[in-house]
């Protein structure tokens, strides 16, 4: 990716109850679910 990205991922600053709930579920942890992948996705879509 050429230009510097217009966002940084600050996981500890985010209060996302929806994700917080998912990431504590056994089946999500076992599946390899990662909140940083979700943050990456939605922030990329926001700043594309």
């Amino acid at each position, binding site marked *: 990716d050429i230009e510097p990205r217009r966002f940084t991922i600050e996981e500890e600053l985010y209060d996302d109850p929806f994700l917080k709930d998912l990431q504590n579920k056994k089946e999500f942890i076992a599946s390899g679910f990662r909140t940083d*992948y979700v943050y990456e*996705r939605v922030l990329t879509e926001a700043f594309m």
Partner: protein
Amino acid sequence: EYTKEKKVGEGTYAVVYLGTKQSTGRQIAVKEIKTSEFKDGLDMSAIREVKYLQEMQHDNVIELIDIFMAYDNLNLVLEFLPTDLEVIIKDKSILFTPADIKSWMLMTLRGVHHCHRNFILHRDLKPNNLLVSPDGIIKVADFGLARAIPAPHENLTSNVVTRWYRAPELLFGARHYTSAIDIWSVGVIFAELMLRIPYLPGQNDVDQMEVTFRALGTPTDKDWPEVSSFNSYNKLQIYPPPSTFELRKRFIAASENALKFMSGMLTMNPVKRWSAIECLESEYFQEMPPPTNPSEIP
């Protein structure tokens, strides 16, 4: 504009012809989607191929040149790619070197990275979906099982990826997996390129787990939290992970970094498994020998 000169393949939902783009004389492949067979209208695999190939233009992803309707059939015009890695692996008359393998892995991971940064999961990476262009460039192909990375709460089907290349989380039936499943497939392909025989050839889904864990060790909650929560976990035979010595013995031609690279892609816990970027930036691609120039690969 396009001719269909020779039938070269037939799948469940499509027939593939070789042809020519008249205006430029360029050789092309035409994937004619059979429409009558699918009682629910347009076939899902065709919809996925069209949907994802339309969004990606990358040197290591097969190019969708055009699409047209003819006689009620949907035709995908794709770039012509005469062979694939499966053919090359099987053809023992073709000798290739670690530098050749490194080149193929670099191109494959660039293509996979492009899918992932577009938030697209391929979900069927295997040697015969890695096609080779006339000048030796690897192209990721067959997006009939691909899908966009879903919303976090959505359930995904675990019945994807051809068995031998299926990641352990899929074997356990995971419903919230990530792009890590594609990286696992690339890891198994890498092993197969070095061995020139399939690395984890399970006879069926249960045997696939057995073969996988015997070769790479059965995951435990210690290295993969909550893995024991999968229903199929407690019937498992527990195998220890192979020692470095055992791995070295199995992959004699592999350098230390090559083994680290492979182990990064074949990490059991998907959270710790290397991402495409970690693979591309790994020592393996920086150490000698440099990857062969694609046009010089046999």
